[in-house]
């Protein structure tokens, strides 16, 4: 009993640095702008108001921007899953010449920060006439550096599946593609969950690429839209920005709450071996 109380105590204390900033974000969005930077910050809005939330939709095509972020993240997630599960399966379970060297080459992309390649990528897409479209935001994550992490996770997962699977599949007369599709992929559900969460969040939070590639408000994504709420003198309208930030964060959190149990336990049952 005492041990339990102690554990709860430790967990509660550890929670503080995680929860306080989120709490501040949400409560500040309910405060008038002059109260937000009061020091020390107040825990509850003295005069709560929903004005900022109304302005979020009034000042920007926010619903459209929300949709942009949502569909881009969804397309990127599905595309990344397709590319990375195929590659991960091949790297883990098919013997072909140079597979280790190729994997190592691809792995390099994992550690390249986007600041390094943004200018050449911009020139590339500009010469293809694709700036101010969503194509760069979709193609780069699916095929470029961000998908490498996904391939890596998928490979580690497929490595952990028992060898006998392929033999059983061969006995059933399944080809390579069928083995992957009918056996590998269904078993990989937890890894798919992990990759989906990583990929979705990465796309959802992407900041540098949208501000460089997009210039029409109707095509903006959420992190970029947040920076657009400024007053008549170019000063940030903090309450509106924070309201928009809260609206951006909450749905993802809800999805996590719903999906986490299956995701964690699924990964636990099947494991992630290296």
């Amino acid at each position: 009993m005492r041990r339990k109380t102690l554990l709860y105590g430790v967990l509660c204390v550890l929670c503080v640095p995680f929860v306080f900033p989120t709490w501040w974000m949400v409560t500040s969005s309910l405060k008038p702008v002059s109260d937000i930077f009061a020091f020390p910050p107040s825990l509850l809005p003295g005069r709560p108001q929903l004005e900022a939330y109304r302005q979020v939709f009034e000042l920007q095509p926010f619903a459209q921007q929300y949709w942009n972020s949502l569909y881009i993240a969804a397309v990127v997630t599905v595309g990344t899953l397709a590319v990375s599960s195929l590659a991960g399966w091949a790297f883990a379970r098919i013997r072909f010449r140079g597979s280790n060297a190729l994997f190592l080459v691809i792995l390099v992309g994992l550690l390249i920060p986007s600041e390094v390649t943004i200018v050449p990528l911009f020139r590339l897409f500009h010469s293809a006439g694709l700036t101010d479209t969503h194509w760069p935001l979709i193609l780069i994550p699916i095929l470029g550096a961000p998908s490498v992490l996904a391939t890596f996770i998928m490979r580690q997962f497929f490595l952990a599946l028992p060898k006998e699977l392929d033999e059983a599949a061969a006995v059933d007369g399944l080809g390579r593609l069928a083995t992957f599709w009918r056996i590998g992929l269904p078993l990989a559900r937890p890894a798919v969950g992990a990759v989906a969460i990583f990929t979705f969040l990465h796309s959802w939070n992407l900041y540098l690429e949208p501000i460089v590639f997009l210039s029409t408000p109707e095509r903006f994504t959420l992190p970029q839209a947040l920076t657009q709420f400024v007053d008549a003198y170019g000063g940030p309208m903090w309450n509106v920005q924070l309201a928009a930030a809260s609206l951006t964060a909450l749905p993802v959190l809800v999805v996590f709450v719903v999906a986490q149990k299956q995701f964690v336990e699924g990964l636990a049952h099947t494991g992630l071996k290296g």
Partner: protein
Amino acid sequence: MRITMAAAGLAGLLVLTACGSGAEPAATGPATLRMTIWTGNAEHLSLLNSIADEYKKTHQDVAAIKFDTLPIENYTTTLTTQIAGGNAPDLAWILENSAPDFVGSGALAPLDNLVQPEQLAPATTKLWQQEGKLYAYPFSTSPFGVFVNLDLLKQAGQKPPKAGWTWEQAVAAAAAVNKESGKAGLVVRDFDYKGWDNLATVWGGWGAEAWSEDGKTCGFAKPEMVEAMTFLHKAIFTDKALPAPGTTADFFAGEAGMTITQISRASLLKDATFKWDLIPLPTGPKGAYSVIGQAGIGVIKKSPNAAKAADFLSFLSNPDNSAKLGQYFPPPRTQLLTAESLGKSNPLLKPEQLQQVVIDGISTGRVKPSHAGQAELAQTVRAQLDQLWQPGADVTKTLAGVCTAIQPMLAK
């Protein structure tokens, strides 16, 4: 290594996309103009769009004028990335701290068809000129003033300060506020021991400057700068008149007795719960002075539509449209700089405040320090000055160190 092989194999593709320069040929037919701005404010955009619509009525050769909002905190960075990527806008708003870079590099086309350019107040165009030519229209000129929280000063037994006050009085009042209420005395807004260029609002009173007029000689080690910084250091660490490094206080939330900032911030006082005033900067040993922040609009020279863009800019900046823009941005045209016309757009400010701070400020103001390569200079000075912001720092030695670090960059 496979990687080098891959890179070598791509050499052909490299050449295709690599070349950085080469102006695009002049376009024919109706043009679409693109202007980058940093405001996303709906009222600003609708004003800009209405001016653009009016322009298009009489100019068939311009099909559309598009205003692209880039986030202000990485405005210059994003703009440069677009230019580097081969997607330069036709017109761009330019922040004062990158003005010398844009004007001096030849990135902008000279503006020689502005309407009645003689009306522009000389103090407002200085930053945007080179060899007698104007390279950007200074559409926004916002002077620095001191906002005073009259309630906090009264509580500390201080009389409300008036124009003509001195730095000694300002520091004494600020120290009293801090002693009496525990709140901050005087806050140089946006300085926060990093944005040192805002200190021009302090050292101007001593006649000090970051570098000489021609930008070639460092001014940090000069006696007047040492004197000003010694005064400031004492005000921070001995008198506790300014909040120490690593402490924040927001004037507009009622946490500081006074703040030095641009007058445009007055909008934050819309629902202030305390009584306040706006007065000019205190006078220093060298008398009265004022400081302004600016923004300009320039035409990007390598745009294929540069001539059309310049024509639109002269329309945008003509006296009528200047007056419209003046609703939001303090204008550079002298005939618009009257308490009456400014009062319409700044309902929170009294005529007297507008006259003393805005009108007098714009006509005599010096722009915050800026120089070609400003970002690198700013970063270097910031790193050096960090040694100054602790109790017992050697002011003379630190400032000499600043000059040692930046003199080679200035001399370039």
